[in-house]
């Protein structure tokens, strides 16, 4: 008997555990429900206490009790437990104040094994895919999910069929091909790919991680929230800033915090949730800003392709999460995305992909609007790696003329290209020369 099962979010009917994401009764989405009373007992008895969790291996499986994993499941990859660290220089740049100790980066740009938070959701989905007897797993993807499904499938010995919009970044396509997955490029946008996958899932017995395995898959996102709480010393932040594509991550971080509170693992706290989108694909932030209770679909047009979902499946729930928390949502233009990628890199040494640029850019707006205050503890969710979207930086940095390997050449180059008064070594050498001369 499992400690979790699928339950319809709207009518409450339970469905046991099976590859299914929709309630046949009312056509509403299913989610995973847990036996929280049993889990609370484990917390009290110490088998799932803070101390016990902290002694476990540093990966997302340390929260297994709050994940829908088959009983026979043995983790084969150390996914998650990515760094959470203070970002004082970025705080200074974004908030313009000296209070710099309260901004944190949750850096899933270095998540194992494919450098995005999608490794978390796929790890959970594939544990179930195997238990349900699928030999083929599949997904529709804007890139990061494609990489993750392909890599995890290789590790698990499953076949992978990956459906992507044909205009994806080359690095994300290559990063899927390399794992031996079958990549199907669709001449259309993500929403069209996703619709096609719903139809294929109807016809083929494949484990689509974001269709028939979606309730399980989505639970993997909660581990971002569990880790943030634990890494802050088992406390919740004041604010979360989270990029939104389908809108699932922000709702699952909220669910993670609620579960930790419910189990007494953290003190109760009202966390504000802030969503970040690219202006060229901003159905959720538009709904927040206009006060609408419905999401109007959009045709995506942005360089932030990983967020280019015009008809977000979880948009309705993301909107509710943001509104009910007292948060807000912002969006940024493509040039702002590029500037923000550079800002994070130059301020904190983190190279994020376009989605991270969206998050940083929106965080700046939220600080300037005083929706986020400098003395509040704020976590920015950086969900992907900049090495996958280098094409957006093409032309930003010019290729320098090579110089001969001679000191005189370098000195000449230095004189030509730099204001030498700003180069500490040159200044020190000039001072030394002056002193010797005196």
């Amino acid at each position, binding site marked *: 008997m499992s400690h979790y099962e699928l339950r319809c979010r709207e009518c409450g009917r339970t469905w046991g555990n099976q590859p299914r994401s929709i309630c046949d009764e009312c056509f509403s*989405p299913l*989610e995973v429900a847990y036996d929280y009373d049993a889990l609370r007992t484990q917390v009290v008895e110490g088998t799932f206490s803070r101390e016990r969790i902290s002694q476990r291996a540093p990966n997302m499986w340390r929260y297994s009790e709050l994940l829908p994993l088959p009983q026979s499941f043995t983790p084969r990859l150390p996914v998650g437990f990515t760094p959470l660290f203070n970002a004082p220089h970025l705080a200074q740049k974004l908030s313009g104040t000296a209070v710099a100790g309260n901004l944190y980066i949750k850096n899933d740009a270095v998540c194992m094994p494919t450098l995005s938070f999608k490794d978390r959701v796929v790890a959970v989905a594939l544990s179930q895919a195997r238990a349900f007897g699928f030999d083929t797993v599949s997904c529709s993807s804007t890139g990061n999910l494609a990489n993750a499904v392909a890599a995890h499938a290789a590790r698990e010995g499953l076949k992978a069929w990956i459906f992507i919009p044909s205009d994806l970044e080359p690095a994300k396509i290559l990063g899927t091909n390399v794992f031996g997955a079958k990549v199907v490029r669709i001449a259309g946008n993500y929403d069209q790919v996703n619709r096609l996958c*719903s*139809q294929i899932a109807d016809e083929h017995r494949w484990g689509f991680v974001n269709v028939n395995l979606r*309730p399980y898959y989505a639970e993997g996102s909660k581990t971002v929230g569990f880790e943030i709480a634990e890494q802050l010393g088992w406390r919740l932040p004041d604010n979360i800033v989270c990029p939104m594509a389908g809108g699932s991550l922000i709702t699952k971080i909220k*669910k993670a915090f609620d579960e930790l509170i419910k189990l007494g693992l953290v003190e109760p706290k009202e966390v504000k949730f802030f969503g970040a989108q690219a202006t060229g694909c901003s159905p959720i932030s538009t709904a927040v800003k206009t006060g609408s209770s419905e999401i109007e679909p959009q045709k995506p047009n942005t360089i932030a392709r990983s967020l280019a979902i015009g*008809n977000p499946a*979880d948009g*309705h*729930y993301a909107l509710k999460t943001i509104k009910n928390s007292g948060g807000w949502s912002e969006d940024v233009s493509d040039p702002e995305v590029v500037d923000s990628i550079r800002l994070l890199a130059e301020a904190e040494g983190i190279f994020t992909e376009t989605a991270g640029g969206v998050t940083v850019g929106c965080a700046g707006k939220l600080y300037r609007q005083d929706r986020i205050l400098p003395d509040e503890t704020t976590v920015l969710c950086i969900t992907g790696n900049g090495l996958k979207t280098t094409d957006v930086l093409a032309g930003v940095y010019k290729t320098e003329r090579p110089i001969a390997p001679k000191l005189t050449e370098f000195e000449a180059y230095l004189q030509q290209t730099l204001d030498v008064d700003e180069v500490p070594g040159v200044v020190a050498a000039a001072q030394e020369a002056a002193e010797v001369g005196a």
Partner: protein
Amino acid sequence: MPITVQIPTALRRHTAGVGSITCAASNLTELFSVLDEKFPELKPHLRDDKGQIRRFLNIYVNEEDIRFLGGQTYAFQEGDEVLLVPSIAGGVE
């Protein structure tokens, strides 16, 4: 105006297993009337108590989301293929 309507597996138990029908309807309202008549059990799964299209049901015409074509005001063209596709959302406590 003959159009074809594809019904997803999740709804076929309300259509006695029928996965596709050809019918005459000039707009979405008429199409729903046809479906209501043909498959009375299907009705509550397509629209809520207030008669609004259910939030988690997406309707496509020839691969395009009907909301981009004018939604309720779109006039079906002869030979249009209409897809009813469940929106796959995760949900939250």
